């Protein structure tokens, strides 16, 4: 496919890996912000074809992972009502709350449906006027325009039986929260490419200046990631700290102004609790007062449900780049994608789940790495 295949080209990846190796002179710790980027790194072995001096740590940018446990319990409480059709993206259904996951609730007869787009949920509300249709609106800034459009459209069409359970999170406050963590190790960021297609790059400029860290907005394919790492390492080695845009084929500096206007119309900024991290001030979106008739938390009175997380899980430290999945005694043993203990194992974009999916939980136990990882490593230029 055009604009995908060429960015998975082994020759180009190898040349960039060589350029990185020629540039680096000392150790650096770089965090990729997005779960999709984490997945690419582990799937293609990007971290294994660059010099060992560069350590990639995996950020909190998987919205499925960081959706708080109590928000999943609230979804559960709404979805089990007989008058409700509960709709969600597929990857949220397997995430366990304290009362099990939504898929198990569906197997017990609840009307829970997977939708491809939030507009499918709006159309479902139009087709089922006798039911209350609720959409689980999670995501980072990338998903905010689709979710805002769904609310705006339902409002415009007078669909009073459509509401959203909002658990939106924002990247820049999580970035500053990581940089303010005592013992922070992160020296530079690969910025979130798709978030920036919407929001642009401007809001990252003050972070580069205040905290003196390079931020390179980066795409999601192996060649993108290697170019992003190369641009980041060049800055680090030169003692610079600027915002740069590697993903310029999709990201404009100002973002998508049409999308930003719609977000501004439908949502306002609020404090948000992140699974594994806790409350980060001004790190989420909630519906504006004008759209309160579409606010599922208000309509179903579930905002008082609160839940405690597992104390054994170290995902909070992994999401801040302080630890890696292998640092956890439960990783791959008591904690697996089938029975996750916490945030980073619940979705395939979480660091622990990605490491598990590509066999890294078997490393160090005398068991060879799984064939898929090896073959893909060879595809993009061979194992280091």
């Amino acid at each position, binding site marked *: *496919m*055009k*604009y*995908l295949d*060429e960015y998975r080209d082994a020759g*180009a990846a190898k*040349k*960039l890996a060589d*350029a990185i190796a020629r540039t680096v002179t000392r150790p650096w710790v770089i965090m990729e912000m*997005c*779960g*999709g980027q984490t997945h690419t790194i582990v799937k293609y072995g990007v971290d294994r074809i660059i010099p060992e001096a560069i350590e990639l740590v995996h950020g909190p*940018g*998987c*919205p*499925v992972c960081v959706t708080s446990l109590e928000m999943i319990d609230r979804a559960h409480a709404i979805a089990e009502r007989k008058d409700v059709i509960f709709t969600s*993206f597929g*990857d949220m259904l397997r995430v366990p709350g304290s009362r099990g996951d939504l898929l198990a609730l569906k197997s017990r007869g609840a009307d829970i449906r997977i939708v*491809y*787009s*939030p*507009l*499918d949920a709006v159309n479902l509300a139009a087709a089922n006027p006798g039911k209350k249709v609720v959409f689980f609106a*999670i*995501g*980072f800034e*990338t*998903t905010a*325009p*689709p979710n805002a*459009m769904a609310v705006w*459209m339902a409002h*415009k*069409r007078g669909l009073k039986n459509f509401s959203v359970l909002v658990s939106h999170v924002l990247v820049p406050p999580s970035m500053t929260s990581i940089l303010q963590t005592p013992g922070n190790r992160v020296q530079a960021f690969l910025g*979130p*490419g*798709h*978030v920036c*297609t*919407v929001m642009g790059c401007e809001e990252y400029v003050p972070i580069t200046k205040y905290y003196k860290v390079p931020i390179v907005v980066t795409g*999601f394919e192996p*060649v*993108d990631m290697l*170019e992003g790492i190369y641009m980041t390492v060049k800055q680090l080695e030169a003692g610079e700290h600027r915002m740069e845009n590697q993903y*310029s*084929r*999709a*990201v*404009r500096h100002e973002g*998508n102004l*049409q*999308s930003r206007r*719609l977000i501004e119309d439908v949502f306002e900024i609020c404090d948000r609790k992140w699974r594994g991290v806790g409350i980060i001030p001004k790190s989420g979106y909630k519906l504006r007062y004008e759209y309160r008739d579409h606010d599922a938390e208000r309509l179903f009175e579930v905002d008082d449900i609160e839940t405690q997380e597992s104390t054994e899980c170290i995902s909070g430290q992994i999401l801040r780049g302080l630890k890696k999945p292998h640092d956890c005694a439960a990783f791959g043993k008591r904690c697996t994608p089938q029975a996750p203990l916490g945030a980073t194992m619940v*979705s395939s*974009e979480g660091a622990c789940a990605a490491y598990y999916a590509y066999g890294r939980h078997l490393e160090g136990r005398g068991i060879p790495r799984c064939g898929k990882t090896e073959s893909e490593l060879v595809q993009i230029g061979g194992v280091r």
Partner: protein
Amino acid sequence: MCLGIPGKVTRTFEEHGVLMGKVDFGGVSKQVCLGHVSDVQVGEYVLVHVGFALSKIDPEEAGKVFTFLEKMKQLDELQVPSP
């Protein structure tokens, strides 16, 4: 989650006052909301996330990394040590 797939716009139309379209992803065609890229033309590529086009792909910018790699290759060839 923030998955974005590039696809080619093959048709545009309006639904409930919002610009929609058909987008081809390497042979698979899906209905996509084009309301956030309202100046898009048939034949252009867009980046699609959960059924919404969020950005148009700039073909000129897309080729830059390969131009850079080509230049780097030429530079390497110039630096072959003399016998």
